[in-house]
């Protein structure tokens, strides 16, 4: 008999966690079980899912991006100002930002720098730029972004439909394409990738550019939902995105990631907040309680990993 693959086991946990939270919410507030209820519940799902995927791409090459939140905030500020007033310049700014990410990835590969230090430094750069672009909260969302984000597909709310679409696209790109294999190969065994004649330098650069593209999409969609921006709008996305990847079955090193898992992880974290609100946990305690949920789920993950190992030995 064929045992379920370890990948399937890893994916099972975030799905079960999401289902458990959803059921909990439904039990407490049955009226959430409607189009409108789900719409509100998953409203912020798309930007969080995109941010988590961006982080996942970075983590698949054994790096970590601590500037994710401030980069997305910067993108949001550009979206709410330049992209509205002068779309061409705005788009150009975002392209340069993506190119900067690619360059960072190549510098990290070339000099063997720790990505944590480089991105921590960059987080202040992005935060500063965001304040320069938009000194006080405000701005408006480009009309086309608002139109997309406020669409109400008949089948399911936008937050869910968008998340599914993003998960499928990312799965194809990272898990199925040659490009994705190369990137995860760099995470798995950099030397053997180099020995096969690939340039690890360019592979890392491409991974960072891909991550930046996801992050730009996260920033733009976030503004579409909020209809305005400020320089601190997405700061908590740094840690949320890392937690989402790990929750979704990813590892910090070794190139083991899952795109679908990451999206599930992101949505689980999103629901954890609502769940606590419905439980009437006071906002003062919510962040702590969210942390507790996270620890609980990760402990389960360790347990599963142990089962997996024992299963292999037997």
């Amino acid at each position, binding site marked *: 008999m064929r045992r379920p693959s370890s990948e399937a086991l890893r994916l099972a946990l975030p799905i079960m966690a999401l289902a458990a939270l959803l059921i909990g919410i439904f039990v407490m507030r049955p009226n959430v079980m409607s189009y409108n209820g789900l719409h509100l519940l998953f409203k912020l799902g798309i930007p969080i899912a995109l941010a988590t995927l961006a982080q996942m791409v970075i983590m698949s090459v054994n790096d970590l991006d601590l500037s994710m939140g401030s980069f997305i905030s910067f993108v949001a500020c550009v979206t709410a100002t330049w992209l509205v007033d002068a779309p061409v310049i705005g788009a150009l700014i975002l392209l340069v930002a993506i190119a900067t990410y690619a360059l960072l990835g190549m510098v990290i590969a070339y000099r063997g720098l720790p990505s944590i230090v480089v991105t921590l430094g960059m987080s202040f750069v992005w935060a500063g730029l965001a304040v320069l672009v938009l000194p006080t909260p405000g701005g408006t969302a480009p009309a086309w972004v608002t139109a997309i984000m406020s669409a109400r597909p008949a089948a399911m709310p936008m937050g869910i439909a968008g998340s599914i679409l993003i998960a499928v696209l990312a799965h194809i790109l990272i898990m199925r394409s040659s490009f994705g294999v190369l990137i*995860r*190969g760099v995470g798995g065994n950099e030397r*053997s990738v180099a*020995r096969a004649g690939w340039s690890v330098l360019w592979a890392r650069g491409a991974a960072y550019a891909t991550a930046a593209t996801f992050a730009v999409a996260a920033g733009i969609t976030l503004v579409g939902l909020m209809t305005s921006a400020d320089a601190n709008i997405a700061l908590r996305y740094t840690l949320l995105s890392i937690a989402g990847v790990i929750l979704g079955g990813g590892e910090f090193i*070794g190139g083991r990631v899952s795109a679908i898992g990451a999206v599930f992880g992101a949505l689980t974290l999103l629901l954890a907040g609502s769940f606590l609100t419905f439980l009437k946990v006071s906002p003062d305690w919510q962040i702590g309680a969210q942390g507790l949920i996270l620890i609980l789920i990760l402990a389960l993950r360790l347990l599963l990993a142990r089962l997996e190992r024992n299963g292999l030995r037997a």
Partner: protein
Amino acid sequence: MPVIDVTDARVRFGEVVALDGVSLQIRLGECIGLVGHNGAGKSTLVNIINGGLTLQKGQIAGDGELIPTYGIKVARARGLRCVFQELSLCPNLSIIENTRLMHRTLGGWGWRSRARSVISHSLDQIFPGHRIDPTAQVGTLAIAERQMVEIAMAFSDAGIAPRLVILDEPTSSLDAGLAAQLLTQVRRFIAAGGAVVLISHILQEILSVSTRIVVMKDGRIVAERPASAFTHSGLVEAMGSVPREQAARTRAAAGDAVLTLKAPRQGRHDFVARKGEVIGLAGLGGHGQTDMLLALFDLKSPQWLPRRDPAVTFVAGDRRLNGVFDLWSILRNTTIASLQDLSGRGLLNDRAEARSAADWKDRIGIRTPDMHNKILSLSGGNQQKVLFARALGTRAPVILMDDPMRGVDVGTKQEVYAIIRAEAAAGRTFVWYSTETEEMQLCDRVYVFREGLIVAELTGDAITENAILRASFRDEAA
């Protein structure tokens, strides 16, 4: 015309001369057996040929023309493939995905099915009846299966046909049947006009399959003859096994057991270490020896509260990974494990620390003008001595050593062996994992590992290279 022609290759790593003027021609249709002791320069030569290392002197020609900028890409484009001693696939990817990475020409829509047929075809040809699922993740495969995949990968053809395949200890984790299948493949491959360079410590394999045998020693080629001109003993002689000055095995009266570990399964050997013994952990690399050392360490060292009298201490083998503190001085690196003995009321006694370090500098012969120099100013061998001094400086009665002599020169080794014997005679216990059989012969008792378990226990004069190899390779005489 030779497919690869290396002329007067010279490579140095710091003070160590790895290749000292090596010239080698590899022609199509021949299998070159490359033999030599550890550190003879075989791996360096292989890395030169596959483009991973750049020559500091000398030149490489391919098919008669000089190649000025030789590198990995050039080598691969010429049909050169390599199976490395340490497995070099991506463990997080499936076999199909690894195939895609290895063959740059496979890209485009539908690469999965193409990669699948390429690797399946090669696996079926070399290892008929292999039962390996190409969609499996490499990390979940057994070690022998991984090696099979790697070999099949090297011989697979996806656009650029392999012409020269270098096999570096390819049979180290294959059983007799699989090894025979591989050797058959080598014969078939050279008959079809390919070339193979085979490195193996199993001389019988080399003798049976090679057309020409090249013997290396100390970075030079010392003999090069058709295989028919060599016999088993002639080959050993040519490698020039230095008559080893074996530190006499002092038969210390076996003391009390200081460390025991039950075998995880019934019917296997338990681990016992007695006072004053030097215990060897042998077998092929990566068969559970390091895990055993770590288990022994965890068993005896409390996780929560450090003890003033540690029961065990550890000498790391991978110096850069978990041995030295890069940025610290030699002195700090020496005393870090015994700081509690060198301090009073929580404060470190500088004078006691300096005294202890100076003491060890003399006893173990650390070659440095000043113990306050950075640790990285020392040669590898001397860094290793510092790690020994660190371990011996504690009061731990048991010392665990994880292949500590990797990349250490012969002179240093002899000095350290003497220290180990002296400390053992004084009542300390050593548990010593080494991949070098010679070192195992210095031990009082040896446990041989295979697939994570102790499969044999050898004592005293029964510890021979043959006995260890026989136990490491299930039922297979070396």
